[in-house]
């Protein structure tokens, strides 16, 4: 007996490869369908500001309602997947910049990034963070988004925050978090009628006043 591949082995191997390729193809298609459903959900929320129905999502994505529920056991599971997608996209577009710059540059950089994020994600934030009862996975993710915002500010304003006690730092962070909340941005833009630049200016001035002095 040799190590040479016999015809029957070759056939078996080719057919196994074919099976794998088919499975891979199927998996890829399924992943693509899943992504298109998530994107349809996000597009609908951006257009209407409302939580979409399964029928609306299916129509927008170009699939059947059944296709949705084959991939997501219920609409809450879809909301969770949409949140994960949004977190990943927001993180990819929010690289830390100007970390070692002077105080004003860091404040402006942080405010521009956060303002842009609020502008882009506000409708989705509202839909996802409304009625979290009975959705612990979603609650956990909403908490995580808030933590990410706080962690980012802690990094951006590390020199100033390092100069005060823990208790003091906690108070400042609570104030900063309230200031740069999604709804704070929404009020500036929608209720008080500020432009993007004016809204950024409000935050820049307020953060500058709230932060302790920058150490020499």
């Amino acid at each position, binding site marked *: 007996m040799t190590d040479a591949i016999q015809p029957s082995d070759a056939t078996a191997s080719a057919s196994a490869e074919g099976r794998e390729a088919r499975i891979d193809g199927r998996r890829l298609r399924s992943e693509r369908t899943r992504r298109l459903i998530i994107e349809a959900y996000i597009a609908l929320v951006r257009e209407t500001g*409302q939580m979409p129905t399964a029928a609306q999502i299916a129509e927008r994505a170009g699939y059947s309602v059944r296709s949705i529920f084959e991939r997501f056991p219920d609409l809450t599971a879809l909301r969770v997947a949409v949140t994960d997608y949004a977190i990943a996209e927001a993180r990819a577009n929010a690289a830390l910049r100007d970390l070692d710059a002077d105080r004003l540059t860091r404040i402006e950089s942080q405010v521009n990034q956060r303002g842009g994020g609020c502008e882009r994600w506000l409708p989705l934030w509202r839909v996802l963070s409304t009625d979290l009862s009975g959705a612990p996975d979603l609650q956990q993710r909403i908490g995580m988004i808030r933590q990410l915002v706080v962690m980012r500010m802690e990094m951006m304003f590390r020199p100033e925050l390092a100069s005060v006690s823990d208790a003091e730092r906690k108070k400042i962070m609570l104030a900063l978090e309230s200031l740069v*909340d999604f709804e704070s941005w929404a009020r500036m833009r929608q209720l008080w009628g500020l432009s993007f630049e004016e809204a950024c200016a409000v935050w820049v*001035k307020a953060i500058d006043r*709230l932060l302790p002095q920058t150490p020499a």
Partner: protein
Amino acid sequence: MSVSTPATIVDGRRLRSERTRQLIIEAYLSLLRNSKQVPTSAQIAERAGYSVRSVFERFPDLISLRIAATDYAFAQGTASAQPRDLHGDRATRIRSQVETRAHTCEAWLPMWRALNANQGDSEELKSRVRLARELIFRRLELMYQPELSTLDEPMRRYTLIALEALTDFESWGRMRENFGLSIEEARAVWMQTIDRLLPPTPAA
């Protein structure tokens, strides 16, 4: 011997109807305080001790009930939030304003959340949300008039907008619910924050 005239019968009926209406509104508010869910008509009726039909005899739909409850809450909130210490020194005015605002947030946060969640259903609810925010804005303007008068526009307006954001209902809700701060601790955060945000007080 008492004599029941048509007028006293009508008055008695009107009073009972007003009382029922009031109890329904209070039941709605009490359910909101105890649960994060917007109450159903059946829950409201049960809590008030009336039938669902009684609820809808007084309010054509649940939006009308929400509007009535909002008006009732505004009246109550305004009555218990009269401006005090308007001519006090900076620290006294900050303390006074924070105490009043904290009391309002503590008492009306669930109502505020329900109002915001449902404002898309009705222009009337939307207008009440706007009115509430304008009142908060005007109160801040009134309390910190000496400091704000030292700023030119648009800085004056920017400072007011930042103050409003920092003392928002949800800012209070997060301090109390997410971060577990006591009322005193949460007030201390607001007092320090306002003090930092305001420009120096001009000399008298």
